């Protein structure tokens, strides 16, 4: 990797972190409605994976999607406008936090019904298979989604039909408040892929370079074999499941330990400085730029117009027959 690529990974991660911290404040101010699921702690996962894709590779994820949106190239201000339900949001204020997308950038959405986007991912890959495209569909989901039927149907179909899907399980250890051990017969999630003879691997998820490398190998394996691959990424969310989470299922010591020892931003910052790739001052500069980007994004989102009431039915159908 070139230096600017290393720095871009840092930029994206800090951008997500700052975006999310600001979103948290906007939520408390009542400016963001509905549910808000923060990605803080998991930044290395989407950043490492999406930086390894080619532009023709499709990305689809679940509802914890702000990070993926940033990594796929949706401007921060457009993400913020969507969070505020404004017309300049990527879904014009129709989707909100859980439903970001930008099809031009091959980001096929945040999807909010747990596991329901896995069959859709299989279908995206079917589209590429049908047209003999080389593209890979990268489908991200939490470990909680591996207990729903859709997961098993979709993995099975991807293997039987030879679909180029990279299944990525972000194992953050809790499906809402239920720990993996309490919800899943196997705690090593990648073992579930074994049942469908899908090659698999588990990787450390707090080190963006490790994620990036594992993703790169996995993506190219899928592309070469025209067959699915399963990558489990071990991660941890530092915030609650959503904003209204009393967090009775884990101790604050546990959270603090992760934040102290395994913060993906801290780990990567140290790596860049220790390896002489960037100075602390340079990284501060990137952080300041990101801060400015987010602040300007908040202003943009706040001043963006509300969707018009007369557009309530816009896009209900492509054609009103």
């Amino acid at each position, binding site marked *: 990797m070139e230096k600017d690529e290393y720095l871009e990974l840092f930029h994206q991660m800090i951008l997500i972190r700052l975006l999310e911290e600001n979103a948290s404040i906007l939520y408390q101010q009542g400016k963001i409605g509905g549910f808000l699921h923060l990605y803080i702690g998991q930044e290395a996962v989407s950043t490492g994976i999406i930086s390894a894709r080619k532009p023709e590779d499709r990305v689809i994820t679940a509802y914890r999607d702000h990070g993926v949106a940033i990594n796929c190239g949706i401007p921060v201000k457009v993400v913020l406008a969507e969070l505020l339900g404004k017309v300049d949001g*990527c*879904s*014009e204020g*129709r*989707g909100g936090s859980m*439903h970001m*997308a*930008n*099809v031009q950038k091959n980001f*096929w*959405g945040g*999807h909010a*019904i747990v596991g*329901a986007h*896995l*069959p*859709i*991912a*299989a*279908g*995206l*890959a*079917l*589209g*590429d298979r*049908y*047209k003999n495209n080389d593209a890979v569909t990268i489908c991200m989901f939490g470990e909680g989604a591996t207990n729903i*039927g*859709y997961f098993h*149907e*979709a993995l*099975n*179909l991807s293997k*039987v*039909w030879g679909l180029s899907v990279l299944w990525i399980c972000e194992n953050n250890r809790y499906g809402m408040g239920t720990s993996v051990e309490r919800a899943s017969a196997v705690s090593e999630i990648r073992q579930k892929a074994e049942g469908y003879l899908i090659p698999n691997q588990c990787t450390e998820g707090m080190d963006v370079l490790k994620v990036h490398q594992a993703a790169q190998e996995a993506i190219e394996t899928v592309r070469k074999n025209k067959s699915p691959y399963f990558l489990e990424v071990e991660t941890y969310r530092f915030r609650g499941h959503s904003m209204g989470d009393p967090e009775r299922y884990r101790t604050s010591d546990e959270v603090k330990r992760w934040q102290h020892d395994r913060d993906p931003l801290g780990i990567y910052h140290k790596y860049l400085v220790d390896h002489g790739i960037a100075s602390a001052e340079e990284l501060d500069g990137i952080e300041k730029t990101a801060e400015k980007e987010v602040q300007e994004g908040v202003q943009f989102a706040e001043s963006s117009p509300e969707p018009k009431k007369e557009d309530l039915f*816009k*896009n*209900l*159908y*492509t*054609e*009103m*027959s």
Partner: protein
Amino acid sequence: MARITMREAISQALWEEMERDPNVFIMGEEVGVWGGSYAVTKGFYDHFGAERVRDTPISEATIVGAAVGAALTGLRPVAELMTINFAFSAFDHIVNQAAKLHYMFAGQMEVPLVIRTVSGGGRQLAATHSQTPDVIFAHFPGLKVVAPGTPEDAKGLLKSAIRTNDPIFFIESATLYQSRGEVPDGDYLIPIGKSKIQRTGKDITLVTYSKMLETSMKAADQLAQEGIEAEIIDLRTLRPLDMEPVLESFKKTNRAVIVEEGWRSFGVGAEVSARIYEQAFDYVDAPIQRVAQKEVPLPYSRDLEQSALPQVEDVIRAVKEVL
């Protein structure tokens, strides 16, 4: 004009659309090697090949979910659910994915998908395999629900459905596949969302669709012998619902009976009669009657099952009550 069965009409529509557009393909349980569990796709696998006539595992959610995904990439899948009773296993992907994506992502995603399925009772398949829950699917904005009652309409509507960029839930009737009718020669389309007058009359308006069109036509024949002329409006599409011909007819006859195969509560009869009362109240000369399935799970026993399903005599009785 050729006189063909409903099965042949649907089969022809699929065949012609697949010949016309290489992006059209079929996926579902037993659609390929088997030739379709109702033999609709017999011969397709040999002609179009395994890539375009895709046998799926028994995974209804993923049949629809993957078809949605393929549709997002610009293909035009026709996903088959062997019966509407299995659509419950795919419910989320029908009503929560297919019906929502275009709206929720501000028009970025289009879902040019047809889900074909088979509804209705009367074949002694007992409670879980005999339902007519068509209205449930018609409840959801974002979906279009089509349910033809004649071979001509089935062919023309299915061809339109395949060419539409919106998700279509296309309901066929299990007991209509053998019914025959005249079908125009060559390529023709019938617009989705248009009701049709299937028989003209001045005394009473019968509003119906799908299998119950046949039942209503038989009732109208018998009523005609008694000098009662029924006008029959075939809804053909449940969503969007075209009330124009219904209201026009009602303003002439001032009396209506609505005939559906499914259960009465919250059904097509409830919806259509409410709209008549809302939009043509001044023309009402008698309470609108509903003929529908008795509200029990359908039993296996032939006699019991038939006693629960709406019959020609039920329609005649309802008409006479209204007149």
